[in-house]
């Protein structure tokens, strides 16, 4: 267009002036600001890795030691500056990195296609993982075996359950561990380990269905009035529910044993069936196999669920509640279903945990536990069972592994740092779910609204 260029030019000239007027001092430009950021991060690294102090004077002296020890300070700030330099001037490095990445992706693609092709590859991979899960703990020291059961194993069950609630149905449940507590206290009650006696004393195995049903009922009871609420309110309600369960456990001395917990040891589960006699004792390995079996069963059941009408309905509810309702889905019912299934899984984990450790008290079920499970699920990849398992395994083993390298009380700080970095660079998680990844991609390109909690707006226009 001939007229267009003339008018464009008359627009362009003042723009140049404005740009000159608005030019910032060099140190205010983004690049140098970022340098400042990286240097500060380096200093922070020096502080957290430096000598630690307790109490005010010790704190000052430890800070002094940090800032006067040139090697550490130099290395840490150096790392910061190096990262900055790579970020700012590393463009030539990035191209080969990308081609390498593409190459890997291309190399993996046939494997992936093979995996997606049918049922057999999936079964084969599952069997291999199961085999590895069965063999590896045998090679570990007893301490690590305990970690496998009490840290990782129990949280694997919890994470698989929470994944249904948050990953599939998109409900932000911050009180997930409350159901875990309900499951644990159920087994304590039915085995006669609480101050009140049950009508009949049962074997922990027999309590499993009872505990699962109790948690299902608790989930329905809590969910029915609250699942009509939007996402953020639900988070608060579940938080409150956790607090209620915790405080009841802590204060109902006559029933739960108060803050001292169980009065007698919860018996170990045992089987006496068809001439088979087996008792799970103190040894962690049998419990690990038990957990492995439960996890494997749940993984199979839940992945079927994900690819059924229920799983699709959950995705619909999560993505657009209004459209889901308009398509005839009773959204509250599907949310309730997810909530109750999650609660039951949590209860199962509670039974296994309680019958392994023998004694429980309210402090086994802090709010932090709920937050941790949540972060494992998000870290691994919400909505992807494989991701959730890997994420939980990594994050529960990491603090144990760090134990031998950093002060014990610092471990969770590194965990936090890892989570922050992950959310910045790979928000979809270690192994993202297919659907969630698409949502993130579409949201980046401005189509549709991916939302961590799936709280769709309530109005149509």
């Amino acid at each position, binding site marked *: 267009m001939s007229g267009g260029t003339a008018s464009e030019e008359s627009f362009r000239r003042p723009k140049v002036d404005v740009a000159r007027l608005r030019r910032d001092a060099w140190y205010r430009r983004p690049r140098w600001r970022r340098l400042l950021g990286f240097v500060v991060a380096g200093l922070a690294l020096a502080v957290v890795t430096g000598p630690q102090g307790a109490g005010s004077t010790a704190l000052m002296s430890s800070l002094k030691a940090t800032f006067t020890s040139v090697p550490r300070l130099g290395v840490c700030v150096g790392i910061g500056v190096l990262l900055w330099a790579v970020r700012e001037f590393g463009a030539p490095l990035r191209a080969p990195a990308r081609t390498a990445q593409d190459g890997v992706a291309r190399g993996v693609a046939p494997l992936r296609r093979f995996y997606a092709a049918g049922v057999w590859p999936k079964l084969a991979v599952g069997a291999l993982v199961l085999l590895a899960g069965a063999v590896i703990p045998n090679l570990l020291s007893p301490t690590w075996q305990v970690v496998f059961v009490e840290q990782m194993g129990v949280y694997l069950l919890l994470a698989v359950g929470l994944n249904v609630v948050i990953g599939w149905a998109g409900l932000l449940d911050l009180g997930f561990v409350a159901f875990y507590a309900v499951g644990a206290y159920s087994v304590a009650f039915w085995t006669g380990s609480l101050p009140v006696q049950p009508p009949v004393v049962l074997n922990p195995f027999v309590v499993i269905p009872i505990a699962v049903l109790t948690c299902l009922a608790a989930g329905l009871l809590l969910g029915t009035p609250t699942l009509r609420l939007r996402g953020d309110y639900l988070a608060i309600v579940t938080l409150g529910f956790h607090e209620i369960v915790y405080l009841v456990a802590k204060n109902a001395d006559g029933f739960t044993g108060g803050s001292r917990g169980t009065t007698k040891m919860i018996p170990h589960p045992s089987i006496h069936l068809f001439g088979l006699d087996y008792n799970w004792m103190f040894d962690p390995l049998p419990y690990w196999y038990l957990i492995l079996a439960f996890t494997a069963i749940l993984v199979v059941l839940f992945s079927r669920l994900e690819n059924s*009408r229920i799983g699709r309905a959950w995705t619909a509810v999560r993505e657009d509640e209004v459209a889901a*309702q308009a398509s005839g889905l009773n959204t509250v019912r599907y949310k309730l279903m997810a909530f109750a299934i999650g609660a039951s899984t949590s209860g199962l984990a509670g039974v296994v945990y309680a019958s392994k450790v023998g004694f429980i008290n309210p402090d086994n079920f802090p709010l932090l536990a709920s937050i941790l499970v949540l972060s494992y699920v998000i870290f691994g990849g919400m909505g992807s069972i494989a991701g959730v398992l890997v994420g939980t395994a990594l994050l529960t083993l990491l603090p144990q592994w760090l134990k031998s390298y950093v002060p014990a009380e610092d471990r969770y700080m590194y965990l936090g740092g890892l989570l922050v970095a992950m959310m910045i660079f790979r928000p979809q998680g270690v192994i993202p779910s297919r659907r969630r990844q*698409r949502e993130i991609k579409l949201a980046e390109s401005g189509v549709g609204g991916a939302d961590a909690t799936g709280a769709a707006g309530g109005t149509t226009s």
Partner: protein
Amino acid sequence: MTATATMDASGGGEVLRTRGVTLRFGGLVSLQDIDLTMRRGEILAVIGPNGAGKTSLFNVLTGVYTPQEGELTFIRADGAPVSLLGRKPYRVNRLGLARTFQNIRLFAALTALENVQIAAERAQRSGPIANMLGMPWARRDQKASAGRAAELLEFAGLGARVNELAGNLNYGDQRRLEMARALASDPEVLLLDEPAAGTNRVEKEQMAALIRRINEELAISVLLIEHDMRLVMSVAHRVMVLNFGRVIAEGRPEQVQRDPAVVEAYLGAAEEDAENTRETGDAVGREDADE
């Protein structure tokens, strides 16, 4: 016109009736005393300038909003009247009213097939336990709904897009997909909110053909909101005109078009909203010239 002739021939009983429906948002009256009567088998178009209350009417009918006053009645195929008042959207859908949205609301991260399948299987009986255990009837259900969804996509002209993500389709295809999803719930009345908005001339003609096929081949009554006059005139058996929440005219397309109140409403709107009226005003003019 042949379209009106079809309507007279079909001449079904009522399928949808509203009486004195009034919807307010605070002080704003978005629907005032609406009396709508829709016959089984007809294509009824609802037109009117921006903000006239067309979408509000849909939202009232489908249970998204509850009107402060009035009656909403759906007449089932067996002739039994059912009140729609206070019914949740999903219950309205199960009664037989399915809708599409003006601002497309698909499940963007699901494939086209899955989008339709969700609606097709909404009333299936297989619960979570049957699906977890992979019971034969759950599998059968699943196969049936997938087949039905594929069929509907084919019907809507999306046969080649079955496995594409809904969010990656173009506007025209997204609107068709929404229609396929709405059809999957086996409605008796289909409510389409501006199905041709944002599409080009060719796509609009395809859309008109699709709406006619839905009406004739599937025997579904269609309540259609549309700004494009050419489309409205070519498919609608009857037209209802809203302005400021009131019905200002109702009748056959060619009658309505000549109605002074309608011309007035569109001319009045022209001063406020040049963009939209250019389209509608022109269309009204052109159609007039044709006769």
